């Protein structure tokens, strides 16, 4: 099978001497839920932000290597980075509803993309909210301010917002941080549905969450990938001593 994303020998440093990523190579397959886990500051979020080029916003930073999306180098000259970000959506650790109503939050990206047809917008709003398991709770108050939602609802709104663009890949950077266990399990359950349609790369909230949701996973430490494998291989029969120590809770 052809990988959806192919990360080839990627290194990244923030220019202050500290290397954030060291020679990362990974293939992410279509319709899998791939989890990047490891202790804080191991480079997971940095890697995630490279994948849709949000890293462009950093004032410093030097990247080496290639990232291929459907065989195309996303850092190649002439890449339409705005289109890229529509095709590779991202949800952050802190829910970031934008000022405006729930409906406006969801149609924001679509309008930027030039979709104006009211029927298409309505239909996308409904579907993305259903996919993010939020539809039932907000369908009667789409005109309300997005700030009026609870933390868990805001996070699912952000998920719905990127799904509304019908991306091919969804990047989830710790999407359940700060959520209560019930909201967390709602989000996790919706992931099973989502990967039928999308490819998901996720930085989990905890090692336990990684073990619960992953199809395949990579264990990262100090900007390097220690071990990559299927969920069972990594969490039950880890090969590397460091992975074993982390997974069994000896450090981290």
């Amino acid at each position, binding site marked *: 099978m052809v990988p959806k994303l192919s990360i080839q020998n990627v290194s990244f440093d923030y220019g202050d001497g500290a290397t954030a990523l060291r020679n990362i190579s990974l293939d992410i397959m279509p319709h899998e839920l791939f989890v990047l886990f490891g202790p804080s500051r191991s480079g997971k979020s940095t890697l995630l932000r490279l994948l849709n080029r949000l890293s462009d*916003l950093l004032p410093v930073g030097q990247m080496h290597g290639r990232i291929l999306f459907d065989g195309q180098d996303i850092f190649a000259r002439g890449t339409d980075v705005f289109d890229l970000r529509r095709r590779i959506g991202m949800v952050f650790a802190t829910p970031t509803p934008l*000022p*405006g109503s729930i409906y406006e939050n969801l149609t924001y990206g679509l309008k930027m993309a030039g979709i104006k047809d009211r029927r298409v917008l309505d239909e996308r709003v409904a579907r993305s909210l259903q996919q993010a398991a939020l539809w039932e709770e907000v369908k009667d108050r789409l005109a309300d301010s997005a*700030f009026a939602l609870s933390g868990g609802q805001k996070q699912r709104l952000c998920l719905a917002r*990127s799904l509304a663009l019908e991306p091919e890949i969804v990047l989830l950077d710790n999407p359940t941080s700060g959520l209560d266990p019930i909201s967390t399990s709602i989000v996790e359950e919706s992931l099973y549905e989502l990967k039928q349609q999308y490819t998901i790369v996720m930085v989990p909230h905890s090692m336990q969450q990684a073990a619960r949701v992953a199809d395949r996973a990579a264990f990262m430490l100090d900007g390097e990938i220690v071990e990559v494998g299927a969920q069972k291989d990594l969490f039950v029969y880890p090969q590397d001593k460091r992975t074993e120590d982390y997974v069994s809770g000896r450090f981290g």
Partner: protein
Amino acid sequence: MATYEEIEQTREDTAVSPTPRRRNGRELIIEGLILASGVSVIIIITLIFLFLLKEGLPAFTSQPISTFWGRRWYPIEETYGLLPLLAGSLLVTVGAVVIAVPLGLTTAVYLGEFAPDWLREILKPLIEVLAGIPSIVLGFLGWVALAPLIQNMGAPTGLTAFTGSLILAYMALPTIISITEDALYAVPKEYRDGSLAIGATHWQTVWRVVLPAARSGIVIAIMLGVGRAIGETMAVMLVTGNAANIPELGLGMMFQPIRTMTATIAAEMGEVAQGSTHYSVLFAIGIVLFIITFLVNSLATRLIGGRPKQRGAQL
């Protein structure tokens, strides 16, 4: 073993009923001082208002109110129509707002969002220096440099409402720019990320997300900037020609000499007999200014959202 709920419950209990605060003498004195300074502000404002009323109200009783609605301001003939002064103030202020707000906002957006670092490092301190220029110096500049320029452009005289607006706008700009830029800076990085991550461009993000999110701060910036301009007297007196007549409506409206309410008080207060009708009319103008300021402030509060809790959340 205590259940989770029980632990939460005890935590809440201790949170709502902390150990009684020890109120020693020192604490009492400090609290008293803070209370006194807070109350004194209220007292002083009330006293000012009462003073204004005491000196100004006779103007409304000594002659019919309709006098003030007149179109002529000739104190020598005991004719006190306020319309020309109101029109003058309105014209100059609105002119200043129309010039300063778009210019100030775009400058702030450029500085905060698009300017390269080195340029921002130069421009920001310069703008702050601008704010420190005494207003009379600006008035002088307007009189010497701006007025001849405007006259050369074809106006009958260089001392016009437009000249006053320009000077006032210039005075309001530094405040508007630096406070707006602070408000933009205070918009959480997450908003920008959230917007960019769904394919918005930098400009779309600024226009659709950053500016709306900074709205309350921007309204405050405009209010403070315009507030500085509205109260300004001397510089305006210098450059607006001081003719208390209602400008003819039309395109040339801005290019006629006018006189503002503040300038009228400043110019005539020194010459009136204390207690005369003219004297109390000048105070009545003060009351009108007071009411206008009050209305503008309430409007601003409403624009910001009125609910202080929401304000924190939106910034």
